């Protein structure tokens, strides 16, 4: 357990109460921000917001809305945090927010954590699914150790 003051940044790609950030920093203050610009850009309807909100109500998390980077910066300051834990996402938007946070708060360590993978294979031909599946099928049909 680290003594470094830590906060958790929860995003929509990982709303799991057993996610790695919650495991690694149980009890740490956690924040979720409804990304207003993204909701607008994607034209998200009420159905999804209700579903996500219900997920969030099962997490020990502060819920806000607005600009994610601004809210995250504010949350880090509110808690004097020097470390932020978040979950991996393939989204370029997530990567951009991570990069901006690192630049804005260079003294704060941002750690992006991955869950147990479906398959561990990294270098897989992604040209077509058949090639991918051929390469990973054996591991995919094996229980997580």
């Amino acid at each position, binding site marked *: 357990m680290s003594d470094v003051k830590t906060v958790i940044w929860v995003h929509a790609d990982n709303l799991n109460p057993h996610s790695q950030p919650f495991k690694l920093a149980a009890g740490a203050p956690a924040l979720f921000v409804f990304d207003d610009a993204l909701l607008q850009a994607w034209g998200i309807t009420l159905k999804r917001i209700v579903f996500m909100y219900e997920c969030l109500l*099962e997490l020990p998390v502060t819920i806000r809305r607005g600009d994610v980077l601004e809210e995250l910066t504010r949350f880090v300051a509110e808690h004097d945090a020097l470390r932020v834990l978040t979950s991996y996402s393939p989204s370029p938007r997530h990567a951009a927010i991570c990069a901006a946070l690192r630049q804005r708060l260079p003294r704060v360590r941002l750690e992006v954590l991955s869950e147990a993978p479906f398959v561990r294979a990294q270098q897989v031909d992604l040209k077509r699914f058949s090639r991918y599946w051929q390469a990973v099928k054996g591991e995919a*049909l094996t229980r997580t150790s």
Partner: protein
Amino acid sequence: MADMRRDFKDREELVAYLREQFPEAAARSPHVSPFIGGRTSAESRLAVSKFGAEYAQTRNYVTGSVTRLSPYIRHGVLTLAEVRDAALAQVSRAEDAEKFISELGWRDYWQRVYAQVGDKIWQDLEPYKTGFTADDYADELPDDIRYGETGVRFIDDLCKELFTLGYLHNHGRMWLAAYVVHWRRVKWQAGARWFLEHLVDGDPASNNLSWQWVASTYSHKPYYYNWDNVLRFTGKKYLNASPRILGNEAFLGTYEVIARRLFPNIDLEHDHSQPHQSPPKPTRFKQDGKKDKRR
């Protein structure tokens, strides 16, 4: 900005609060999905899901035994690994759950492609293989599709499901996507944006890449179907209605007839230069996935 509320006595009160907080989202579509968010609901659904023979045999039918776990997987409430492990725990031989687990594989695959291509996921990853170029397709979704008022009953039924449930069976997604792209010749991006607005399990990876798969901008050939396929996989729903009532004339005919009608510039059914033309391969629209075995 102040913290949002966490204290609600029931779903009704939560929904009322969110309608007030997100009026633009409610104005776009007022419906609330029957899918209840959260790990508790996810675990309950996981516990009753069928992963073996029943899934494999019925998954292509709109009334089939599919898991409907996709909203939970999409939002990380369940991990692919734990769902796979639950599936393997239910069967005596791993091969018995292979169909289901390969569908999880599709999600993993799309996520990996997304990590590789980033925002290019909104661009054609390959040219169309339909005999048309991207410029031949309309940029915007026509209003009759957007509002589910095409006059083609099964298409309009699918639209209503999309609007009210925020979910469609995989076969329904494929039919609707192919209708938009191939029957109406609209760019897949317009359809993908529309799905993202409504699906509770929508994300750019599975959603956009499945649209590209249907369109043929990330596959060897376009996905299309005929009325026999719809009839077979929708059970008795449309069995005795006339084409005039159903508005389904454009779907009548063999695959050869449909292919000539939709793709007059190419000989799709007899083009042996493309490896997946004959016999037709199983196809899919990814989420918790189902196949469409073309006939």
